[in-house]
């Protein structure tokens, strides 16, 4: 016991003597842990936020009835209450109301459906008489009243469904965050139908049902509607965002992996520095196992301190990431509104455990080296470090790299397995790096002796001799840079694929639609816009959210004219699958993500739920589509015409004559809309494309941030490695100075060596980066989202990678080099 205490005291003394080293190690560990924590907190917050908004929507209800398409017939509500005798049933009409330019939700419901409930929302019973009998009567939660400066009894000028309306706030009610209907204007259902022009229509009917009750009801509901459990929506959100969350988590684990190299380096340094004292300790009777244990205890201490610092840093970082995660989730999946990271002790502990595990693993080799210290050995040169020799790493490295394709091939569609493969590749490649570095340097030194001057020789030899010390840090840098390369190539390829797809898809010149979610245009608009001078054709798009094999998704109806302005890149099936579908009228095209997710193949029968019953359609083709990772489908307009009562349009794509003035036409069409009280949106092909790519870029912002964080960890690693290196080589470099090198020359020499190391790391990063990009594009992205991307290599990415690598190494060298250049020669020369 006393012996252990003495050992620990010696450790503390060592770290006190090398505070900068200690600080950098802790920083590296902290950064790795922080990234995991931040990603975990932010993604969880997005899910929690979705749950909360669902809670606000669902309250105590468990299910809702929605129409497959359009509105629910209000008579269904009476059937449920009067004929079926169900009690926990609430009808809902939802409107968007614009007040002072910003929009809020208005829920119209039947207060009597709520009034006798224990769990009624606070607004349910207030001013009931006024709600039922006064024009435009609404109840307003305090928060909204304050936001818009609304006062009870003072009429509000608002716009509902694109038309002006006077609302009459009959009561302002208190509601707490997350309460059922607590964040919307509340009106009687008759008011909502009147204001929204929704006679006879409900958006949904909420119910509270037991599982058998739900099954029984589902079997008796008319075909036009479906019963959905709110819990299923939670599950769907979970499923939809899983791939996205897995991707982020993998990125954060990469930061830990890079951090592990740093820890390895730091611990190896700590062993080498103390070899003499370990030797003395061994002479005094300290056992190898004691030294091994000592190193692990040190690592554990560092891991704990760094890890806890990381948790704190991570919660701050999580706040930043949260903004990005929330926006991406909202752009890609469903709107969420998360304000703060969601803390869960479990996640914090998990992050800490992952960090500690990485730190301890990285310490195993240095600890074994410490344990092997021979008694009374007095060497302290780097080469004495018993790190695993580069050659011995060759076989395991090769095995790991080879394991990668095997794992990927045998794992089917598993995303997790794809990431395991990725990590195997990275780990295997990292193990091969030391040998590659050694061999390439040997070749360079050999070649440099012939072509280069003394300066280059000196630099190369310097790098070569420093390898045992800087090697791991360079490998870490290479891994970090390779991730940058891989991800950059993936994003670049993705962006180009999306841009190409947008170009193919958007064949119209102007697009016209209504400025409201799901709002539709009267079919008469097609003819009236086509009649405008300058417009050569107006193709109609009808999009409905329909259930295909029980899954709701957007379905586009295509007619001959629309097929001309919307081309499909068929990835499975005959090239003219669209035409064939139009001809036989019983076909369907599905998007690539849907086909992949559901494992669909040509000729499969799909069931489309329509108001007139289920229709069986045959899969004729799979088209490339980046609009939704969930999936979409296309059917012939004939199907819509046959099975849906309304033929309203979702949008119109106009083609213009070459001579037409697009801007003037845009204004003219907007004015036409305004004359009928409609808020028509008229946008050009280009602006849709720009907006789409803007969203695309926003989506990948978080990836960029994480990538940068990984590089920062690597940078800290290099800095720490160089500091250690120059500390060891003080005497050697002091000799150089003593023999005539000026401080400036020495500074330059050190920087050159660092830059050379950076070049080497950068070059090493390129093949790994390329391999990673292939994995990301062809395996991970496909398994995550089902998208096929055109691989697109960019020379710029290569240059950026090299530049990044050199800059990171050189910048990391500045501080150590300066310290070296200005250090006292005598101290360095005579330091024992």
């Amino acid at each position, binding site marked *: 016991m006393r012996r252990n205490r003495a050992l620990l005291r010696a450790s503390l003394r060592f770290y006190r003597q090398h505070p900068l080293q200690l600080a950098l190690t802790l920083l590296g560990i902290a950064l790795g842990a922080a990234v995991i924590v931040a990603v975990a907190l932010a993604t969880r917050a997005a899910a929690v936020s979705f749950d909360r908004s669902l809670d606000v929507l669902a309250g105590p209800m468990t299910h809702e009835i929605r129409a497959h398409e359009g509105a629910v017939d*209000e*008579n269904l*509500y*009476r059937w449920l*209450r*009067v*004929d079926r*005798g169900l009690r926990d049933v609430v009808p809902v009409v939802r409107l968007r109301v614009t007040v002072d330019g910003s929009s809020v939700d208005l829920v119209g419901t*039947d*207060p*009597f459906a*709520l*009034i*006798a*409930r*224990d*769990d*009624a929302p606070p607004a*349910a*019973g*207030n*001013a*009931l*008489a*006024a709600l*039922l*009998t*006064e*024009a*435009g*009567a609404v109840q307003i939660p305090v928060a909204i009243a304050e936001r818009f400066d609304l006062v009870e009894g003072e009429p509000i000028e608002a716009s509902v469904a694109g038309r002006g309306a006077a609302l009459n706030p009959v009561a302002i009610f208190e509601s707490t965050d997350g309460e059922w209907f607590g964040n919307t204007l509340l009106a*009687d*259902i*008759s*008011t909502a*139908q*009147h204001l929204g*022009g929704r*006679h*006879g229509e409900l958006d949904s009917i909420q119910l509270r049902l037991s599982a058998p009750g739900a099954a029984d009801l589902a079997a008796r509901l008319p075909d036009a509607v479906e019963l959905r459990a709110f819990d299923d929506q939670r599950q769907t959100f979970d499923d939809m965002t899983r791939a996205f969350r897995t991707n982020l988590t993998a990125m954060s684990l990469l930061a830990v992996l890079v951090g592990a190299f740093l820890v390895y380096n730091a611990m190896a340094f700590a062993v080498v520095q103390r070899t003499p004292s370990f030797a003395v300790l061994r002479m005094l009777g300290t056992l190898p196992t004691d030294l091994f244990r000592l190193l692990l205890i040190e690592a554990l201490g560092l891991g704990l301190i760094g890890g806890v610092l990381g948790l704190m840093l991570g919660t701050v970082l999580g706040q930043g990431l949260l903004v990005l995660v929330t926006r991406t989730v909202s752009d890609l999946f469903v709107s969420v509104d998360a304000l703060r990271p969601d803390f869960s002790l479990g996640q914090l502990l998990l992050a800490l455990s992952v960090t500690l595990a990485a730190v301890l693993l990285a310490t195993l080799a240095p600890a074994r080296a410490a344990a092997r210290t021979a008694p009374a050995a007095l060497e302290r040169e780097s080469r004495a470090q018993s790190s695993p020799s580069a050659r011995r790493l060759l076989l395991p490295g090769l095995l790991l790299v080879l394991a990668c394709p095997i794992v990927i091939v045998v794992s089917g569609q598993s995303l997790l397995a794809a990431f395991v493969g990725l990590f195997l590749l990275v780990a295997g490649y990292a193990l091969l790096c030391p040998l590659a570095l050694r061999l390439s340097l040997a070749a360079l030194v050999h070649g440099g002796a012939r072509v280069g001057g003394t300066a280059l020789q000196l630099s190369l030899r310097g790098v070569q001799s420093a390898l045992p010390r800087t090697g791991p840090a360079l490998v870490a840098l290479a891994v970090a840079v390779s991730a940058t390369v891989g991800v950059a190539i993936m994003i670049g390829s993705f962006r180009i694929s999306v841009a190409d797809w947008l170009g193919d898809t958007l064949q119209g010149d102007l697009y016209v639609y209504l400025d409201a979610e799901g709002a539709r245009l009267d079919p008469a608009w097609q003819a009236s816009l086509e009649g405008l001078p300058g417009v050569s054709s107006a193709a109609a798009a009808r999009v409905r959210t329909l259930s295909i094999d029980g899954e709701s998704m957007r379905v586009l109806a295509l007619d001959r004219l629309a097929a001309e302005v919307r081309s499909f890149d068929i990835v499975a099936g005959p090239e003219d699958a669209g035409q064939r579908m139009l001809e036989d009228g019983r076909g369907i095209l599905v998007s690539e993500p849907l086909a992949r997710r559901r494992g669909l193949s040509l000729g499969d029968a799909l069931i489309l739920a329509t108001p007139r019953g289920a229709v069986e359609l045959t899969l004729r083709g799979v088209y490339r589509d980046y609009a939704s990772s969930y999936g979409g489908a296309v059917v012939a307009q004939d199907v819509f015409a046959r099975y849906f009562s309304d033929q309203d349009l979702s949008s119109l794509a106009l083609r213009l004559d070459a001579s037409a003035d697009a801007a003037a036409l845009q204004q003219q069409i907007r004015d036409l809309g305004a004359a009928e009280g409609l808020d028509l949106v008229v946008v050009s092909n280009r602006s849709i494309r720009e907006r789409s790519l803007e969203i695309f870029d926003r989506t990948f912002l978080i990836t960029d941030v994480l990538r940068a964080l990984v590089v920062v960890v690597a940078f800290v690693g290099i800095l720490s490695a160089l500091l250690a290196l120059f500390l060891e080589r003080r005497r050697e470099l002091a000799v150089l100075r003593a023999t005539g090198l000026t401080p400036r020359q020495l500074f330059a020499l050190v920087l050159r060596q660092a830059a050379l190391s950076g070049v080497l790391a950068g070059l090493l990063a390129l093949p790994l980066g390329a391999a990673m990009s292939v994995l990301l594009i062809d395996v991970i992205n496909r398994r995550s989202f089902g998208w096929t991307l055109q691989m697109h290599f960019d020379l710029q990415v290569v240059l950026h990678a090299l530049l990044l690598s050199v800059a990171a190494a050189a910048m990391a060298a500045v501080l150590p080099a300066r310290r070296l250049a200005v250090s006292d020669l005598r101290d360095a020369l005579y330091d024992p």
Partner: protein
Amino acid sequence: MRRVLILLLLGVYGCSRDAATGIDVADALGGVPETGFARAMEPRTFSFPEDHYSHPDYRNEWWYLTGQLEDKNGARFGYQLTFFRIALAPKAAVRDSAWATRQLWMAHAALSDIDAQEHRHEQRFARAALGLAGQSRSPFRVWLEDWTLVGGEDGEFPWTLELETDDFSLALTLTPERAPVLQGKDGLSQKSAEAGNASYYYSITRLETAGELRRGDLIHAVDGRSWLDREWSTSALGDDQIGWDWFSLQLSSGADLMLYRLRERAGGTDPHSAGSILSADDRRIGLGAGDFELDALRWWTSPDGARYPVAWRLRVPGEDLDLRVEALLDDQEMRTSVSYWEGAVDVWPFAGGESIGRGYLEMTGY
């Protein structure tokens, strides 16, 4: 004379938020002003079945059924089913919606299981729109969701009553044994001094009742006797009236007694308290406040602290009646938006002896 609920609902007694039901319905409804509604000013001519239908120009109206039932093993039950129509305004804003209405319906259902000494009740609300609740013709029908009271094409008897709750259900057929009796002055029941503070009020004091009731999972074939009260009005009681004790008793002599005492804030009996006896030979004997005496004999305290007299001495000296009226079950409190006590009672001679009648008792404002 069951205006209690409406009055309380309309905020006359300004009760507090009821924790059990969450929403303070009284607050929610606010004081609907009387202006714009028709009022009961003078006697009118009643005609049946026309007056079984609703009178929407008046603010409030109800179809009030209470009764006692027995199964073949002698197990006894009391039941109540009341439909209240409440107008929220004399006129409403025009809205393009099938949900638009100015009429609210409320219903209370209760079952007293005397042998089990259990009282179950439920309250419901619905709007008079979209077929959710209302009163319709051809056939005569009063309903709130799946609680219904249905008569013939023109409202003729027998009527059937059906209701379903989690705890119990009723399916009963009601056949009058006596003609409707007009209460008050030819059906005009004055409630306080001001003109118009009155209701139109008729009763069918005996309806032969038979059918089934479900209590939990057990179905009983039952028969017995019910009492129907019909009343519509607009105006409220006076400010100094805080509640009442209302009796509807069917005596084995063949006479039926209806009697209410309006209690004043100060504790006295309001002079507008009244009642009537319908003798076995169909003579109606009107009773004024001075014609009867009521004394509480025993009290029961509800979980909420209200103290209800559950045994009474009832005297009508002029008719030589001295009765003891006692609850068959102490806790027959309706813990609805507004709590009140409404329950089955038995009638004995005060001097002692066999039971000489059955009935219902309503107590409010305690």
